[in-house]
């Protein structure tokens, strides 16, 4: 689950000045024709750098995203939910594996990426810095955070880098099941007892602001990314993605009888886009820079897991087994 283009670096005018103009022109022409760029093809340094950054952030979002939902696996109510949630969170970890592999094709190792995650050098989706207090919070993530991720990932799957696009195709197919599962959970809460309805309404109140943040800062204040759009690294503006999400899911939330905690939220018939209260971008910045309720805990859990597993990884690098059976 990944929210998208919110932490691109500012691109300076001379970032591509050192590149061979002929190779650059060929590269850009290929992308304009809709061709995919493969790992052994020539690419500008900036393209490589920004892709690593983006795919890595996506991979981190998957493993960190497994934590707030994973904590509900052992508490899921009943066999049906327990088995589905286990499979869902397992998928997310599997996505991290796919994405790290895609990023590795650009020259950065998985170990280095995980180190950068733990030291805070590289980011992950901001929304996972918020806690899941109840089962309904977990259902909110499964349905709506995954829905937001799909909006973003479907767009990115049409991007220019072959390995990332192929990983995204597989990821989106799985995410669509997550979405169905999450929606199913929420329908049961909506049509259940008053207690269940109240649980989800409270979750919606808690999660709506981070959900609006999920797609990144408003286009009015975000870093200019025209070149990344031209290179099909970034496939849509943050506001477009947010609008698309609202178009698809606000009616569904209303249909279930829940109240979205934004009195200004309405479809503007003139522009065809959604009006809403501008999200608090200062809060967004504060959380992404480490000031959210769970930033420390999430990274600490990851750090401890890495530390506790170190001896296993070391042992794998030192195989002395006389005979190891093939896995299948």
């Amino acid at each position, binding site marked *: 689950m990944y929210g998208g283009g919110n932490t691109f670096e500012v691109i300076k005018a001379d970032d591509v000045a050192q590149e061979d103009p002929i190779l650059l022109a060929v590269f850009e022409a290929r992308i304009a024709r809709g061709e995919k760029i493969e790992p052994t093809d020539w690419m500008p340094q900036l393209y490589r750098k920004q892709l690593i950054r983006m795919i890595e952030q996506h991979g981190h979002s998957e493993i960190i995203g*497994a934590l707030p939902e994973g904590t509900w696996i052992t508490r899921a109510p009943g066999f049906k939910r327990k088995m589905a949630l286990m*499979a869902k969170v*397992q998928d997310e970890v599997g996505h991290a594996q796919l994405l790290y592999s895609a990023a590795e094709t650009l020259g950065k190792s998985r170990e280095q990426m995980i180190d950068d995650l733990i030291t805070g050098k590289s980011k992950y989706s901001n929304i996972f810095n918020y806690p899941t207090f109840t089962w309904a919070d977990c259902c909110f993530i499964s349905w709506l955070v995954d829905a937001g991720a799909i909006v973003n990932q479907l767009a990115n799957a049409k991007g220019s880098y072959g390995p990332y696009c192929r990983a995204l195709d597989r990821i989106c197919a799985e995410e669509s099941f997550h979405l169905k599962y999450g929606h199913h959970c929420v329908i*049961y809460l909506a049509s259940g007892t008053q207690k269940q309805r109240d649980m989800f309404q409270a979750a919606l109140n808690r999660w709506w602001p981070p959900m609006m943040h999920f797609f990144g800062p408003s286009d009015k204040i975000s870093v200019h990314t025209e070149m990344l759009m031209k290179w099909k690294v970034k496939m849509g503006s943050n506001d477009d993605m947010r609008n698309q999400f609202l178009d698809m899911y606000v009616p569904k939330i209303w249909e279930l009888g829940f109240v979205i905690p934004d009195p200004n939220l309405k479809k503007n018939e003139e522009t065809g886009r959604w009006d809403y209260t501008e999200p608090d971008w200062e809060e967004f910045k504060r959380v992404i820079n480490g000031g959210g309720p769970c930033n420390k805990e999430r990274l600490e*859990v990851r750090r401890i897991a890495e530390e506790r597993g170190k001896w*296993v990884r070391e042992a794998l690098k030192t195989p*002395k*087994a006389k005979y190891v059976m093939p896995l299948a």
Partner: protein
Amino acid sequence: MADDQLIIGHRNSEWTGFGPLLEEDIAFSSMAQDKIGHSLALYTILHELGESDPDTVAFTRNANQFHNSIFTELANQEYDFSLIRHFLYDTAEALRFELLTNSTCEPLAQVARKVRGELRYHTLHAKTWMKQLGSATEESVSRLQKSLEQAMPYALGMFEESPYEKEIMEAGIFEGEQKLKELWMAKVEETISQTSLHLPDWKIVQPINGGRIGKHTEHLQPLLDEMSEVFRIDPGAEW
């Protein structure tokens, strides 16, 4: 058997997000799903025989009403203990379900034939890792050795006979815990002999029993409280 699979599945699922490497995270999570699925299949047989529905049976009983072996309820601890338990437990389960394919209880035999295929992957996974880590670095060998010694008395508790052992055997439902234990010992020895580990002396190790008659350690009740936390908010509700 259903309680065994449910509780070990629950423990396996606790590795989700915390594995020593992504691939292991995914593998433990995958096995957890299988185990919980096996427990559901077995509770469903019980339901057909007149017990309450699987959710009620799994999510509303207290520790003293559970019949899982104590081995399955122990905390995961470090990966070395989890791996050793996975190896010892699944080696036994694979053999147990193999024997049950010949059970006179036809629904059980049917489930066993299906489960057997899945458990083959679990034991393949366990053996692969035992062979890799059981003869790799000094640290990996000493960690596994220590966990093996810690686990063995509890592992032998898997073969604690139920109060109806005799009737079960006479009716041809199952060939008995004693036979299973002997088969298991041979399989365990076979794998361990291919590593730098050594088994404790079978004659000295005393099994830690009690699970089959509802006597558990302090680990089980908190696990069950956690498992039923949401379910108990509104037991009449559909989730």
